[in-house]
């Protein structure tokens, strides 16, 4: 996490004026190639993040950006679309003036199919022009912001066009959006294809949840304080709930979502990744692999979900019509590009058990994610066990167990609840909470996750990116569920109303353990 990189010349000479500056981790000069440059992600997230980094002086001084997509855009159309995207989504005001002019000058566009060898020649030409015009040192960061079906194809063609790591004169890195494969077999096939061209060290599998400040703070919370870690085990923790709830439906992405579903889209990557951060052992150092080793070990320790008791560990749901914030919303099966008899899950919940020394197979990790739920809320909630003996409190006092909640979005912060005496003659006990809100707590603006992750990839810090072994292990965890759900049509879909807490079966999953979900 705290790798310090200063700008270094090929002969090892670095800029001593950089040492100790806020931007001392600034990246090497490079060209960023955005595959899928006309898409939603580029416009809404990537380009605003890059421009914001530029304004904060966190991009290398010598850089260029090449967009690549099938739409027949010119360089100027690309610049115009990106300018609109930045104006709309970056919260930086309208891009203008010499800084924007300079940024725009560095944008160019290649139009073509991702399997067209000729287009890769054009891309090569752009990279060479950037090298001479913008002094990019032949370094390239390829960002695959395309539908996953073309990931393999792009990598193969980069190699054919001699634009891969073994042929380029500078460094060469690949950033891949999720999902990585659609199941274990396809993920392995994709990995085989990619590793033929890019060594693991140069592959950055992005999970934007990991770029969020509270998620990183979870590590700080655990490993920079003495008050939590001694309690962080089965003796004091009763259960862990990780929630990624959305109020939005599938919007314009019905086609994609039909093939994905909540398990693949959210649980297998974002939510399981969060779980590994909660459950892992302290890494031996703050470097990328030390952390990723520990995350991987957690996944190896997850007890396989038994096929004969699968329903005791996994629940799926699909939203029916309902109401969100007072407005009527359609059922999933009524969304554009969705099959009227679709059996795709828009809600998934898992109960996982970790069999290792720390968790002793005794602490359920409840994971849930769903669309069209009552409230947008992503959080990690650690529920502690009860006190061994109830000494205080009048009859009828509600005694809540301690909980620690890491709020990821929309609020970002940490909340710790504990019991205190209610003022008065009697010894009434009430639960109170201590809240820490990011931004407010430090009086600073929180940077969007993509800013952090793009900058990290440029400066070769893979800490917040997922390594292949963890991707594979996460698929192994969910495969029994995925296979069952694919082979058995759900009898009860749709089974939760839009705007509700989710399907009743999910409540039953926790009720069986005497537990319940935190209210959304």
């Amino acid at each position, binding site marked *: 996490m705290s790798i310090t990189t200063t*700008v270094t010349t090929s002969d090892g000479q670095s800029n*001593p*004026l950089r040492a*100790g500056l806020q*931007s001392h981790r600034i990246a090497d000069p490079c060209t960023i190639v955005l595959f899928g440059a006309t898409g939603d992600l580029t416009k809404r997230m990537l380009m605003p993040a890059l421009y914001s980094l*530029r304004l904060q002086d966190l991009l*290398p001084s010598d850089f260029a950006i090449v967009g690549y997509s099938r739409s027949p855009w010119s360089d100027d159309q690309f610049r115009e679309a990106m300018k609109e995207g930045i104006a709309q989504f970056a919260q930086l005001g309208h891009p203008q*003036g*010499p800084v924007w002019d300079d940024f725009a000058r560095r944008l160019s566009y290649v139009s073509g199919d991702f399997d067209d060898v000729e287009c890769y020649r054009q891309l090569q030409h752009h990279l060479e022009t950037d090298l001479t015009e913008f002094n990019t040192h032949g370094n390239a960061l390829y960002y695959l912001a395309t539908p996953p079906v073309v990931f393999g194809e792009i990598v193969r063609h980069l190699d054919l066009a001699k634009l891969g790591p073994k042929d380029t004169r500078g460094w060469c890195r690949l950033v891949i959006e999720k999902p990585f494969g659609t199941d274990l077999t396809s993920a392995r096939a994709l990995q085989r294809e990619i590793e033929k061209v890019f060594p693991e060290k140069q592959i950055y599998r992005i999970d934007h949840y990991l770029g969020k400040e509270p998620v990183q703070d979870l590590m700080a919370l655990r490993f920079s304080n003495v008050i939590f870690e001694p309690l962080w085990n089965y003796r004091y923790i009763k259960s862990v709930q990780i929630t990624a709830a959305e109020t939005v439906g599938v919007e314009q992405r019905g086609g994609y979502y039909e093939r994905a579903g909540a398990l693949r889209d959210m649980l297998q990557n974002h939510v399981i990744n969060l779980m590994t951060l909660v459950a892992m052992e302290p890494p031996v150092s703050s470097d990328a692999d030390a952390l990723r080793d520990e995350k991987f070990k957690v996944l190896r320790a997850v007890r396989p979900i038994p096929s004969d008791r699968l329903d005791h560990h996994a629940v799926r749901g699909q939203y029916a019509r309902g109401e969100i914030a007072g407005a009527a919303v359609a059922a999933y099966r009524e969304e554009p590009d969705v099959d009227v008899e679709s059996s795709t899950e828009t809600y998934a919940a898992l109960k996982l058990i970790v069999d290792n020394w720390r968790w002793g197979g005794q602490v359920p990790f409840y994971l849930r994610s769903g669309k069209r739920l009552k409230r947008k809320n992503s959080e990690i909630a650690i529920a502690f066990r009860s006190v061994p003996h109830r000494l205080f409190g009048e009859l009828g006092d509600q005694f809540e167990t301690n909980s620690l909640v890491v709020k990821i979005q929309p609020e970002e912060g940490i909340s710790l609840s504990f019991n205190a005496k209610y003022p008065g003659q009697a010894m009434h006990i009430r639960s109170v909470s201590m809240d820490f809100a990011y931004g407010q707590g430090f*009086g600073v603006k929180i940077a969007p996750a993509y800013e952090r992750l793009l900058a990290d990839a440029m400066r070769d810090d893979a800490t917040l990116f997922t390594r292949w072994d963890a991707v594979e292990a996460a698929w192994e965890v969910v495969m029994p569920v995925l296979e069952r759900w694919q082979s058995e049509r759900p009898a009860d879909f749709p089974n939760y109303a839009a705007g509700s807490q989710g399907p009743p079966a999910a409540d039953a999953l926790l009720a069986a353990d005497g537990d319940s979900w935190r209210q959304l």
Partner: protein
Amino acid sequence: MSVETIVAELHRLRETQSEGRVMGATASTSTLVVCAAGAGELAVLSESARRMAIAHGARLLLLDAGAGGSAARVCAFCGRAGGETVCCEEIALPIDAGRPASVIADVEELALPGLPCYLWWVGGELDGALLRGLGALARRIVVDTSRCSDPAASLVALDAILSRQPHAQLWDLAWLRVAPWREMAARLFDDPTRAGALTHIEAIEVESGSLAEAALLAAWIGVQLNYEISEPARSFRTGSGATVTFSHLSGGAPGEVRMVRLHAAGATYSAHVEGDCGVRLSVESEGERRSRCEPMLERSLEDVVAGALFGLGGDPGFSRALGLTARLLRA
């Protein structure tokens, strides 16, 4: 108004709030003390101080040495922070800087007990008993050498304070204002083919409204490049024994930096404010003339002060640069 009356007034305010007549949580996580020496200075800064108090949940204590015989005042003000309404208590206290002991005693009484206290010291000289006493109460202190009547002497005095108390969390606004210029200077040498020129610098020129920023910026470059102080006066000596001259070109308002220029091996590397461009970075030599615009990250005074008082802290670069600055200015 006596301290007892002020305390009673604060109690009354709290009661008003607990009766629900003031909507919002009372800020009570720290005390922000702003001490101004000159007449009218507080009036200019009190709005910034209020916003900082709201954002960081602080009781605000305004000490005004320029207020003449006016009376103390207690009030509350509310604002939004992190989506919530926060109300802060404000005590404005005219002080007699000539009686530091009683001012310090009052501040001790009026600061929230057991909670951190932050001091923004505006305008006054740095070698007096009042700053020493208030400084001892404060967890962090911000001063401004470029507003002192003799910035060079103030920088030397500040260095003396930090040498006596190396762990003091004390910041100079002049140093904080230089932060974006340190970035700009570094940018000039990010191109790996230029980094080598840093070993051949012959002259550093800084144009600014006050000597404080110029000297701190030059000294920071000196620290990064391991310079020592050289004769003749106000120049540096490199590790290989070469002399690097320092010139302060007067220009701009107090606190403003307009340009930094380095001469090395026949080339000139400069960053200067230029209208629409923001800051123009240029490199000029016989065979090369390159320039480009960089955005200047504008930070409001309150963001800069709040960053120093409530932010991360711990910038070892400051004490090193200040040390070299003091030696440079004494030379």
